[in-house]
């Protein structure tokens, strides 16, 4: 291969580009990103950056020297607008086209929006700076959606002295993802800090002065943040012939077509460890999958299935939440250590007859490693949970 194009210049795309060079690829390496900025990191956007603790420069993923060392054909501030696999070319928004022998798709996701106008979303540095300018003591912020992103933003806004209303359609935050018990714990954490968390409410519209609920009520606010999930950036692939269905559909090697791979938030691939297809919006997965996709693209004869144990963290108030594995759609949750009410615990998740996930708060990560191991090796639920009971 002499020409590789990576579309999407963030965590996954950068990891792919770096891996290609590390693995000895010395051909032309084009990195295309529609944001004008050098690759930067997103998790701090809803944490240190929003809180005003970090300035934007701290988010740079690499120094200018590190980037220069990659010898990239860097196209920033220009989107990819089309893919023509038959011609092996990517079309760009400036009217040009880039030919490729190998392509990595890493275009991530964008926030889902609600009907109406105004309000904020939180995905880019611009989004975060705009919201940050508006947060000050006494300002009223409505956050729609009490997922991890909404929860983090609510926590930061409270710390900045804002009056925060958090609106969530489910009975407790994140129940579908982490289970009711952890959801209740999050509910308590928000309410203790003075967040007006209202569950079981549906927002139908964002207005200039707040949000409208399904029952007609208007919840007034100075600022509205919508955090109701995201959609994969696959519009530019329409007509390409690639299979797209909630993400770019890939096999277990991150392959979407001949000489085309996908990685990061935009990729839906078959994870053999769990025997199912998944799309993971976690920061560590972006880097891991970028690396895996790059290796498989470069060495198809030695390609390896991408079978990671997903890992996620979230910082809310004084809690660090850490989770391994695939928790969604679990059949059972068991608290194997500590106490959920005390916010110091390990909960493990059963799917079928195996340990599929573990979530911890306030526990040294070292103690979580064996749970990660149990997930990675597909340990049976009975064995794992009993061994643990004995060990404690």
């Amino acid at each position, binding site marked *: 291969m002499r020409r590789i194009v990576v579309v999407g210049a963030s*965590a996954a795309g950068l*990891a792919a580009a*770096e*891996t290609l060079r*590390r693995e000895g690829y010395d051909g032309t390496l084009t990195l295309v990103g529609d944001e004008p900025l050098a690759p930067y*990191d997103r*998790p701090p956007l809803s944490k240190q950056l929003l809180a005003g603790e970090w300035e934007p420069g*701290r988010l*740079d*993923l*690499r120094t200018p020297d*590190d980037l220069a060392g990659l010898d990239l054909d860097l196209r920033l501030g220009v989107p990819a607008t089309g893919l023509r696999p038959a011609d092996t070319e990517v079309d760009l928004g400036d009217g040009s086209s880039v030919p490729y022998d190998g392509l990595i798709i890493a275009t991530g996701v964008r926030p889902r929006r609600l009907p109406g106008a105004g309000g904020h979303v939180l995905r880019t540095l611009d989004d975060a700076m705009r919201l940050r300018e508006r947060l000050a003591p006494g300002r009223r912020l409505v956050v729609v959606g009490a997922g991890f992103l909404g929860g983090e933003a609510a926590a930061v806004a409270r710390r900045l002295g804002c009056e925060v209303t958090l609106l969530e359609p489910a009975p407790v935050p994140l129940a579908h993802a982490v289970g009711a018990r952890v959801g209740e714990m999050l509910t308590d954490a928000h309410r203790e800090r003075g967040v007006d968390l209202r569950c079981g409410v549906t927002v139908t519209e964002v207005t200039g002065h707040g949000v409208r609920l399904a029952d007609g009520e208007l919840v007034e606010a100075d600022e509205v943040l919508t955090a109701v999930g995201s959609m994969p950036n696959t519009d530019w692939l329409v007509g390409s012939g690639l299979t797209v269905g909630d993400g770019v559909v890939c096999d277990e090697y991150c392959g979407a077509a001949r000489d085309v791979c996908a990685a990061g938030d935009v990729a839906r691939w078959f994870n053999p460890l769990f025997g199912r297809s998944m799309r993971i919006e976690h*920061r*560590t997965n*972006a*880097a*891991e999958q970028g*690396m895996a996709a790059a290796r498989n693209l470069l060495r198809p004869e030695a390609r390896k299935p991408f079978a990671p144990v997903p*890992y996620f*963290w979230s*910082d809310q108030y004084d809690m*660090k939440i*850490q989770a391994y594995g695939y928790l969604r759609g679990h059949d059972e949750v068991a608290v194997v250590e500590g106490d959920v009410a005390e916010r110091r615990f390990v909960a493990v998740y059963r799917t079928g007859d195996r340990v599929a996930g573990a979530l911890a708060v306030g526990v*040294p*990560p*070292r103690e*979580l*490693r064996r749970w990660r191991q149990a997930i990675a090796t597909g340990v049976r639920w009975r064995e794992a949970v009993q061994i643990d009971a004995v060990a404690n």
Partner: protein
Amino acid sequence: MKVELEADKCVASGQCVLAAMDVFDQDDDGIAVLLDERPADENLDGVREAVAICPAAAIRLVDQ
């Protein structure tokens, strides 16, 4: 080769420990601890993996 760790960026993911056990550890809060600033050659691949995979871009490997 020298390893540099910006501990205040670290998000306690433990990826570095998985990649290079002899070079990184985590304290009780999960924050990465550098065990070996100048790793032996056989550990360098693991360190490079850690640099690439660290979700906080908190690790660098510098030529000196």
